[in-house]
């Protein structure tokens, strides 16, 4: 399931990793049989297998500089990742064979434990990287660049204010704020008296995504104050990522109820505006979910990479001490 899509990229590395592991196990078993006991890392077999494992571990770390130097196009990213994945997995059995199936002292045991953590965290990350993006593609159509979530949200606030200014006029309570805004809302309102353009999530038939919506809005004067009040009190804080007094907006179902009540408190002509505000809230909820998914997707790398660094450094110490007392 995990490999189905890119099996062609994985196959050579799977073969190489399997070849390394199987040949190492067989060679070690044969050499141990000849020696009459499980030979360790200092034997020719153990040393060669250990060296191969070390080279793989060090080459795994090259993924980081390769990422930094991606402008030089040092091979395809998929190939790098496949090699990283399968050769990395091979280091576990190789290290085990190198040790002669014997944990040894503190340092060697520590190295084995660290390697196990690196491998497990790598597998964990691999699963996450396979599952979460697919899920996001289906469930987060409003997905944007994570680092730009707050920026896009501020734009959404600006859009909402423009729309409300056009539809409901400038709120007396917010006049000073509007005057300081980047957009000359009065001018914009003049230009967009008939139509407004808003970037929001909407559904058209079977497609659902973030689209540019053109809408003609007309709000009855008696609703204007209500809409402005609700917007400033609840919707805008939520869109800006601040805690809204009413947490209903953070949840899909409760948000739907909240907007339903909001709609019922206004005349039917305000529905168009309220719908757009609801779309913006939904967009923000997806941003929040995307932010969580992003943390799941990337924070494990901090563990995986840092333990890998620790492993590599201690591996050097292991080599130095092994040569001194081998």
């Amino acid at each position, binding site marked *: 399931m995990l490999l189905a899509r890119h099996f062609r990229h994985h196959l050579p590395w799977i073969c190489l990793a399997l070849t390394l592991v199987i040949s190492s196990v067989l060679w070690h078993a044969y050499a141990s049989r*000849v*020696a*009459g*006991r499980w*030979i*360790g890392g*200092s*034997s*020719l077999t153990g*040393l060669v297998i250990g060296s191969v494992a070390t080279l793989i571990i060090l080459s795994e770390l090259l993924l980081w500089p390769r990422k930094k130097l991606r402008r030089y196009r040092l091979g395809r990213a998929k190939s790098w990742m496949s090699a990283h994945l399968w050769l990395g997995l091979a280091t576990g059995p190789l290290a085990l064979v190198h040790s002669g199936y*014997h*944990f*040894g*002292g*503190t*340092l*060697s045991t*520590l190295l084995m434990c660290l390697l196990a953590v690196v491998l497990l965290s790598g597998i964990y990350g691999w699963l996450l990287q396979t599952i979460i993006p697919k899920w996001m593609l289906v469930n987060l159509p409003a997905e944007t*660049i*994570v*680092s*730009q979530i707050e*920026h*896009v949200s501020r*734009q959404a606030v600006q859009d909402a204010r423009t729309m409300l200014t056009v539809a409901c006029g400038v709120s007396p309570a917010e006049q000073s704020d509007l005057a300081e805004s980047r957009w000359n809302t009065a*001018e*914009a309102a003049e*230009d*967009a008296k008939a*139509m407004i*353009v808003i*970037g929001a999530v909407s559904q058209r038939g079977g497609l659902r995504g973030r689209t*540019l919506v053109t809408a003609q809005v007309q709000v009855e004067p008696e609703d204007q104050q209500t809409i402005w009040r609700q917007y400033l009190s609840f919707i805008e804080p939520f869109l800006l990522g601040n805690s809204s007094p009413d947490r209903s907006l953070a949840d899909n179902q409760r948000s739907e109820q909240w907007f339903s009540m909001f709609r019922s408190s206004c005349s039917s002509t305000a529905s168009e505006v309220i719908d757009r505000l609801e779309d913006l809230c939904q967009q923000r909820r997806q941003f929040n979910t995307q932010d969580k998914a*992003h*943390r799941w997707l*990337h*924070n494990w*790398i*901090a*563990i995986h*990479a*840092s*333990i*890998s*660094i*620790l*492993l*590599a*450094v*201690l591996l*050097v*110490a292991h080599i*130095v*001490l092994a*040569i*001194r*007392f*081998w």
Partner: protein
Amino acid sequence: MIESGRDRSRRIDTNYHRKVDASIKLKRIYGLLALVVGLGLSVWFVYASISARDSGAVSTGALASAHAFMGDSDCLKCHTANVPIRSDAVWGKDLHHVAANNQKCDACHASAGHFVSHTRSDVLDSLSCSECHREHLGKQTSLVLQDDLQCIRCHENLSAVAKIAGQRKDATSFSKAGGHPEFRSLTNDPGTIAFSHAQHMRPGQAFAADDKSATTLARIPSQFRHLYRANSQGLVQLDCADCHSPDSAWPKVSGSTLGSRANTPDSAIDRATAQSLEPPADQAISASTSRQAEHRYFQPVEFDRHCVGCHQLPLKIQHGLDRAATIEQIQRAAAVTVVQQHTPGDLATASTQLADRVAAIFGQGKMCAKCHQLESDQAAGHIVRPSNIPARWLQGARFSHAAHRDHACSLCHADAHSNSPPEANQPLAQRVMIGGLNVCVKCHISDSQQLADRSSETMKNMTDGACVTCHRYHLDPPNAIDRRASAEMGRP
């Protein structure tokens, strides 16, 4: 003015990827931390091992209990820096490395070589102690127990390692057919004593079933009578324990065959135990107290303890004296008798009688010569040839009677219990009463896989037949014969 789609796309900073978000910060912090911790630990590990503060940190495992007293304080007590200690390590076979490592072991262990007189010196020089004695495998690990392969490596083709090819036969397995040569030390009995176990095990030690001269309990002097028992016909019935007593009391094990074997009355066991508890007649026995404690051997059979009950010497001659003393004793005792019986003045007759009596003691097939071979060399210090009965028969291996106490003596010494007459071409004195390889392999197998599967009826009583069960590497056979054996070999 209305904002177009292009305007909106420009509203996102195209250099967004240059910005450091929280996840990148986290990676950098953790990475830096790992680097610092890794470098710190590395420095500590290296420092600890070099400064001998806590070498256990870099040790590959706990030392065996025999070396545990050294602790993990200093690797260089056994290791030589930057020199591979294990022979299977890369460059581990380098002669300089082996010598450097063995020198460290020799500082504490004055171990004997291995067939130094037979093995090529370059082969021995290339063998590191650690080749067999593997350390750092845990406290409970035995440094002595070895896999058969360790021995077979050389013994499967001894010609390649021996100074003179063909002197010794190859060995590849104890229990497989042809895998182990017959026991060399059992091929010939070097003893000079003429003794029939079969006859002595018969009731009354009769030569034949209707032998009228069979020994009855009444014919045994009263002072020795309590040591023996008679059967229902009044004939003396000996058993093994009447003459063979262990070097120390057997450990009491319920169900032990030697301790309660069916063919041996309890009284005989008691006697054997009582005899074994007596102060040993031979000082050499007391010298080997460590072996006594292992209950491996039997005390040598002695005339004054085991034979004299039935075989009293005439003229109260003392057994075991040298030639001059024995002759003097015989002449003195015989002279007393002759003088008492002779007619005064008839010195010629007296002299002849004295010579006859002495000749009767030394004559072929009489008295001494009944059991001993007379020494033809008059210059020799003794009248009869040394008995040459080995106190330890299996000289190339170790055998423990205590370990086999659950078995009847006849399992290995079948000939000693046989009622069949000795074969004409194999005199009794040359007949070894010890079963050979074919007896051992009934119970000892070297195939560990077979041994592991003891579920079948035929396998449940099988036991280990590994090389180290009987052999020791550091015993050079000429030096391996214990002092008791040496004393026995030199005693008439």
